């Protein structure tokens, strides 16, 4: 189930060819031109232009940072980020914190949560509200939901609002992802959504290994490892009592039932697939340059065969197929497992508890590469969730003002309001999407590396990052008393080294959308795929069952969908 949801949110909209940097202004111009033609062709529709026109009279309200004379309340859909750490001694809550207070003071905007659900239930909640035609005024939706909303004419036209109220910075950030970005949120010539952005390398994969265990079993690993190195370490972790407690109670490679995703997941096996140059769950190009589905290529079979061997010999957790994704960290926290494959930022969620429970735990970041020494990092869809406004909602420009504010924070133009408390999750803010430029993540990693090497002065770092550098300079052992701070430094300064490596190759899906046949048949094909992979690994089916899977997949709609994807990708090019 999770798998599909992930698949879905990863196939949300977006584009993959980014021609960045050289001529931002040109990109801006073409985006503006696009909007202009969009506005003209949309004029036949009427309503959009008129409602914009009447409001445009009030310039303070429509300007990017103007304050309302009367308080304006906006209702927004919200997911609860889970355990939130507020700064010591503050009484902040999700609805009353530094962000909401600043927004009220600056814009005279009050924020109400139309609903609050756990993060994992957000997409479902939104789908439910859409199907009952009961969406709140302001809402982040994924591309599948966006499509339904737009087709059903449930969204407010934001074309004029965006023109008048979006700050130059926001327009710049969005235009930086190329003209396709706006094309994706334009429907019938009207812009009906504001896309949040996902910078490249935000989710690159890192193999986290307990260095103290490696020392105990006498293995030395280079920062760049191969599948064989990983196998060696996993075997030693099972057989050689790495925690020195005299019991054979430690495990090798961990995973969960969502072990294969379109980018990377916690304790997933995604890095093993890319180490075999297999790109499951995304649309990739075959040798002849045709778009094909990555899960059906022969490299996938090799990777599965390897995992099958590991499973049979016990290197891969026997139970991985039955573990729910949200329980991924239990053996790691308990100090029973010393290998975790996941994100650069995995320490924040997966590793902090292991240090809390065992001060001796030392985690190192390793880069798992393919035979040619490269890490093929599948990149997330550059387009995140899309902010939409319900048709007929009052003050659509209010949301743009908020987005302007957070765009400034996201791009370090102004400091984040919780810069003094690195443990406070960014998702506590009312706008739960980011509007960062494509290079935001890499730039930040690079700044930390430069600062650590003394090439960059402390004062040259953004305010929020100075505290993290200070923490780093205190030394990792001291930091373990505050596991969240420890984890953040591990993420930024150690995990962050890996995406900076020249051996990282960016892999984008050739297509992120949903085609007509996919709407009908994708649930079924995903089931076929997930079931085939897991059953091959656990030995329920022979390795050659992969070929049966491929032919079944093609027969049951895969071929048809592939044709559609080729056509769509061509159209969007």
């Amino acid at each position, binding site marked *: *189930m999770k*798998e*599909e*949801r992930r698949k*879905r949110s990863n196939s949300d909209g977006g584009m993959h060819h980014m021609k960045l940097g050289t001529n931002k202004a040109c990109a801006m111009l073409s985006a503006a031109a696009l909007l202009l033609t969009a506005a003209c062709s949309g004029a036949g529709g009427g309503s959009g232009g008129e409602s914009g026109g009447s409001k445009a009279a009030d310039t303070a309200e429509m300007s990017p940072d103007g304050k309302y004379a009367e308080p304006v309340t906006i209702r927004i859909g919200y997911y609860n980020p889970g355990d939130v750490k507020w700064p010591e001694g503050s009484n902040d809550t999700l609805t009353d914190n530094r962000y909401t207070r600043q927004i009220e003071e600056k814009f005279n905007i009050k924020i109400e949560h139309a609903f609050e659900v756990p993060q994992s239930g957000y*997409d*479902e909640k939104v*789908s*439910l509200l*859409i*199907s*009952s*035609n009961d969406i709140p005024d302001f809402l982040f939706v994924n591309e*599948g*939901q966006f499509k*339904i*909303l737009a*087709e*059903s*004419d*449930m969204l407010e036209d934001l074309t004029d609002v965006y023109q008048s109220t979006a700050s130059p910075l926001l327009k710049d950030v969005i235009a930086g992802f190329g003209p396709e970005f706006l094309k994706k949120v334009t429907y019938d010539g009207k812009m009906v959504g504001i896309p949040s952005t996902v910078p490249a390398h935000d989710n690159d994969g890192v193999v986290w290994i307990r260095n103290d265990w490696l020392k105990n079993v006498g293995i030395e690993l280079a920062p760049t490892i191969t599948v064989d190195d990983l196998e060696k370490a996993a075997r030693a972790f099972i057989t050689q009592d790495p925690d020195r407690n005299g019991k054979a109670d430690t495990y090798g490679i961990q995973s969960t*039932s969502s072990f294969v995703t379109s980018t990377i997941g916690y304790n997933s096996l995604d890095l093993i697939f890319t180490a075999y140059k297999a790109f499951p769950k995304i649309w990739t190009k075959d040798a002849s340059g045709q778009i094909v589905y990555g899960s059906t290529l022969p490299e996938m079979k090799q990777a599965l065969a390897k995992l099958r061997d590991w499973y049979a010999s016990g290197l891969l957790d*026997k*139970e991985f*197929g*039955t573990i*729910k994704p949200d*329980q991924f960290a239990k053996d790691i926290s308990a100090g029973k497992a010393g290998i975790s494959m996941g994100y650069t930022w995995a320490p924040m969620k997966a590793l902090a508890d292991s240090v809390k429970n065992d001060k001796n735990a030392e985690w190192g970041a390793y880069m798992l590469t393919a035979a040619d020494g490269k890490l093929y990092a599948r990149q997330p869809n550059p387009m995140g969730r899309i902010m939409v406004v319900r048709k007929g909602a009052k003050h659509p420009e209010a949301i743009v003002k908020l987005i302007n504010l957070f765009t400034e924070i996201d791009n370090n133009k102004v400091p984040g309001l919780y810069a003094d408390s690195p443990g406070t999750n960014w998702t506590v803010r009312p706008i739960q999407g980011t509007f960062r430029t494509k290079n935001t993540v890499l730039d930040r990693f690079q700044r930390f590396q430069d600062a650590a090497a003394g090439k960059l002065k402390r004062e040259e770092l953004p305010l929020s990052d100075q505290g993290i550098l200070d923490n780093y300079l205190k030394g990792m052992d001291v930091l373990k008393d505050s596991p969240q701070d420890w984890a953040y430094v591990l993420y930024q300064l150690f995990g962050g080294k890996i995406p900076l490596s020249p051996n990282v190759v960016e892999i984008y899906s050739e297509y992120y959308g949903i085609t007509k046949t996919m*709407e*009908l048949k*994708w*649930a*079924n094909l995903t*089931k*076929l795929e*997930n*079931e085939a*992979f*897991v*059953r091959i690994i*656990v030995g*329920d089916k022979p390795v050659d069952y992969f070929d049966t899977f491929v032919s*079944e997949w093609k027969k*049951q709609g895969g071929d048809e969908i592939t044709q559609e994807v080729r056509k769509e990708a061509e159209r969007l090019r």
Partner: protein
Amino acid sequence: MEPKRIQLHYHLMLLPGMIVLAVFHFYPMLGAVIAFKKFLPAKGIWGSPWVGLDNIKFMFQISDSREIFLNTITIASMKIVAHLVVPLLFALLLNEIRIRYVKRWVQTIVYLPHFMSWVVLSVIIVNMLSLRGIVNQALGLFGIEPILFLGSNTWFPFVLVGTDVWKEFGFKAIVYLAALTAINPALYEAAAIDGASRWQMMRHITLPGIATTVVLLLTLSLDNVLNAGFEQVLNLYNPLVYASGDVIDTYVYRVGLVQSQYGIASAVGLMKSVVGFVLIVLSYQLAARFANYRIF
């Protein structure tokens, strides 16, 4: 004249229940037309365009619709039988206990799980049935190799039935216990005087005394033959056991809510209701013939 007026009373008393039934059960049934439409939320149920039988046709084209139907029927039938037999046995045994407070305590304890949600229970069950969990440790004492219950297509249906029965049998036994109290104690006294053993009393007085209730509950449960327990399956299954555990409801959930294909999801749901309806009519006929039980 007199009998008719008394009947009117009863009908009036029925009215609130009928209204609730109409509002919450009959009215939503009209929504089933979505099965023949391409549902667009903004246009609403009635405004959405018709697509004829497309959704139904598609449902039968799904390659594993057979698997899903079979899984559902297998799991649900096993549950129906188990839910009939286990609470009945339990009620009979409990009825034989003469110490009142023991009886009360046991009854209270066994029906507690009924009030727990599957979300909570699933976490407990996953832990208990894991390779290093308590069940496998116990099996290990007998030299049995650990079994991956939640990842094995052989075991998974039994896990579903077993845990569901464990959760519900205490609660379901209440109905039987109530039926047992309705048996005239004079019958037992008479049997005792005639020298009947307790086994004979159970065989000839207790069982015939509650036979009607058993048949009634069986009849009422037959429409569940396509309900394999959505919440439970959703919380316990994973791709490894799709082959034995993916049921109609989980499929509808994935297609309908996750993929937003409301039309197809409704078509499957409608199909389920039609089969359920046929079954309940059928089982009513059977009940009328074999247990002389009639509602109408």
